[in-house]
């Protein structure tokens, strides 16, 4: 069997696994967010918070919950890093500098997990386990909560009430992420991922001498890092590190973990709006883009254009032998089409076009299938835009799922899709215009520009992967990428929740012969087109200067 066929079979195996999980997980999550019963452990948590989980919130209250909880997260994580030098169980590691601590706190709270630090030399047990890994859970749960609030906006009518933020967030952690991560962590340990608290210790080597190893709670963090589409590695090499991702099976398993919730949420959505076929239409849109991108990536990586790769005889720079080109391509596409940003191979050393595909995946807004929750609400925003475009074509007031898409709704959707491109392009332009940021580049020419474009694309879209040649641990990058991550996460959430509130207040419009059938393949086609054209046009000039210039030259 050749590597190309093996790559295709791995993709098919992944599709089968995701398909098997789709219905049970999607249905389960719909029950989780619709149930009015509380588990005992949840009642304890609500008591600890001092919140009544049965109080319905209108969108401003829901938003205030999101922001207060996230602000507390940034503050807590910042302090934990600043105090590391005096904390116990921290291996004697020194405290993190203020700019890097801000960047890292913003990064993990926004579900980005951009890392300007080296995990193995900078972060001790307490920061990794009680700081970073905690945000892996809760930032993902916040994303799902906001998505569920928007879905309720479609499902409910003549009310402004969107549910209770604390209940949605806590249930996401307790009923979805925690059990899933626990099982996944055990599977990972069984396959070779480490899980111990032995700190830094010496291990003998074959030729004599010793090497120093970091022990740590790696498997427990790895599991939620993928399941919550976070992506922050325990080690600098992330999922390329054999202690995070030891075998070809764990590689596919980790890809499965990072895709399973975002895909299954389309079923949760379908059930909650009363038509699973509406969910299938979104699923088909996501799957089309994902499979298409994987096919393109495999094509360019197996073709290995680019001088160094041609001389080497294959695109193995930055890739591990146990994964090879095929499995690495699937991982790269899946991590950039979700908000994960974990890597099992280093995107900077991909072919020029391959690197461009990873960047374009993030630029699409991470909606195919996207991050936990953020993928679904991002896709719903694009669905509204697609419905609006279709409405313009036939001269009819657009409606989606029985709700009119009026001036207020389309304004909010437009604001949503403008935020991240504005952040990416303005910050990239600033960094290129100033004299010092370019000193951080490792590569020259088009690829050097790509390093900076990728950094802000990754930050503003909350992905976290990088063209990692860029030395991002400077005050400029720590500050501006930190800001891009915060604005790129929470401004869109403001628009999503405002939109949810406005939809929930409407009364439903009856379906007539003139209603656009949004559960049909025609709409899926329209949606795929709208996503590619709107994003493609926004970023095309920037892509032409970076990855396209590099890719077409080789």
């Amino acid at each position, binding site marked *: *069997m050749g590597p190309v066929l093996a790559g295709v079979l*791995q993709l098919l*195996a992944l599709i089968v696994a995701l398909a098997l999980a789709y219905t049970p997980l999607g249905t389960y999550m719909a029950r989780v967010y619709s149930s009015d019963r509380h588990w005992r452990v949840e009642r304890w948590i609500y008591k*600890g918070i001092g*919140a009544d989980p049965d109080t319905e919130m209108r969108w401003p209250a829901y938003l*205030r*919950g999101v922001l207060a909880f996230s*602000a*507390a997260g940034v*503050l807590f994580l910042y302090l934990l890093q600043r105090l590391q030098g005096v904390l116990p169980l921290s*291996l*004697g*590691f020194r405290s993190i500098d203020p700019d890097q601590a801000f960047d890292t706190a913003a990064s993990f709270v926004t579900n980005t997990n951009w890392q300007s630090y080296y995990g*193995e*030399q900078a972060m001790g047990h307490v920061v990794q386990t009680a700081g970073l*890994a*905690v945000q892996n859970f809760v930032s993902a749960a916040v994303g799902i909560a906001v998505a569920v609030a928007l879905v309720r906006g479609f499902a409910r009518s003549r009310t402004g009430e969107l549910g209770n933020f*604390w209940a949605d967030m*806590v249930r996401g*952690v307790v009923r979805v992420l925690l059990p899933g991560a626990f099982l996944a*962590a*055990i599977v990972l*340990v069984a396959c*070779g991922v480490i*899980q*111990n608290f032995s700190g*830094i210790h010496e291990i*003998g*080597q*074959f*030729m004599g001498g010793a090497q*120093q*190893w970091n022990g740590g709670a790696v*498997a427990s963090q790895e599991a939620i890092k993928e399941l919550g589409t976070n992506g922050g590695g325990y080690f600098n*090499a992330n999922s390329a*590190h054999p202690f995070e991702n*030891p075998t*070809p099976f764990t*590689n*596919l398993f980790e890809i499965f973990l990072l895709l399973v919730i975002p895909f299954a949420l389309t079923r949760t959505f379908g059930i909650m709006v009363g038509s699973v076929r509406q969910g299938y239409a979104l699923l088909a849109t996501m799957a089309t883009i994902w499979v298409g991108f994987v096919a393109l990536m495999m094509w360019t990586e197996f073709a290995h*254009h*680019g*001088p*160094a790769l041609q*001389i*080497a*005889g*294959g695109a*193995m*720079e*930055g*890739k*591990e*032998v146990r994964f090879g080109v095929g499995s690495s391509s699937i991982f790269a596409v899946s991590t950039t089409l979700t908000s994960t940003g974990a890597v099992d191979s*280093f995107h*900077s*050393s991909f072919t*020029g076009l391959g690197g461009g595909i990873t960047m374009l995946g993030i630029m699409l807004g991470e909606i195919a299938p996207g991050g936990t929750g953020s993928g679904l609400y991002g896709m719903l925003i694009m669905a509204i835009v697609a419905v609006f475009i279709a409405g313009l074509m036939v001269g009819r007031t657009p409606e989606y799922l029985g709700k009119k898409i009026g001036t207020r709704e389309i304004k909010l959707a437009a604001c949503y899709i403008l935020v991240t491109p504005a952040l990416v392009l303005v910050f990239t332009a600033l960094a290129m215009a100033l004299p010092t940021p370019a000193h951080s580049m*490792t590569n020259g020419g088009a690829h050097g520009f790509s390093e900076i474009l990728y950094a802000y694309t990754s930050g503003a879209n909350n992905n976290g992967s990088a063209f990692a040649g860029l030395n991002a641990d400077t005050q400029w990058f720590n500050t501006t990428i930190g800001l891009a991550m915060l604005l790129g996460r929470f401004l869109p959430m403001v628009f999503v929740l405002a939109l949810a509130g406005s939809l929930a207040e409407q009364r439903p419009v009856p379906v007539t012969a003139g209603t656009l059938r949004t559960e049909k393949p025609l709409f899926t086609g329209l949606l795929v087109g709208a996503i590619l054209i709107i994003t493609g046009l926004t970023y095309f000039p920037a892509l032409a200067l970076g990855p396209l210039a*590099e890719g077409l030259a080789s």
Partner: protein
Amino acid sequence: MNNSVANIARLMGAGLRALLVLTLLTGVIYPLAVTGVAQALFHHTANGSQVRADGGVAGSSLIGQQDYSLDYFQPRPAKGLGVNSVNTRYRLILSGATNRSADNPELIAWVKQAKAEVVKENSTAGYQVEPSQVPADAVTSSGSGLDPDISPAYAGLQIHRVAERNHLPVARVEKLVEDHTQGRTFGFMGEPRVNVLELNIALRELAQGDG
């Protein structure tokens, strides 16, 4: 105004309490529970899949090592590997890739140089390695810098050199490589590979046994 300040304070208090409770659950109880199960059921893997040779620990079967002498099979290059720049009381391995782009002049030079070295080192009196035989993994750095494996093609290329230097028949070393070649998992996952540390441990045993 006072009212809104009080409201914000109350809300931030709730946020902070929520965070602390969930930190206890997901940042303390969860990792300890996973560690408990992992140490009880998977003690070997949870502690780094250590491999023993000659009565001592020779490393981990998962972590590639760099400084094998030419008597042994060579791993992939690891130009992205570093040592720690902070907390320097330790000497930690910093995993990582080169992050050089496909058109980076430095990377082109590294690949060319590695290719020439592989050809030179592995050509023996009776066996000439052609540059076209050198597989990509032999001249490129992995993503982690800790890749424990090489491709069967790269291992095959080294057989004559290793056999000559260890005074072993080529067929014996060929057999050794064959025995240590792992196919794709379930026939289709990942790529075929040879674990360098395990292969070299077996080689040393073979050479010492014959010596």
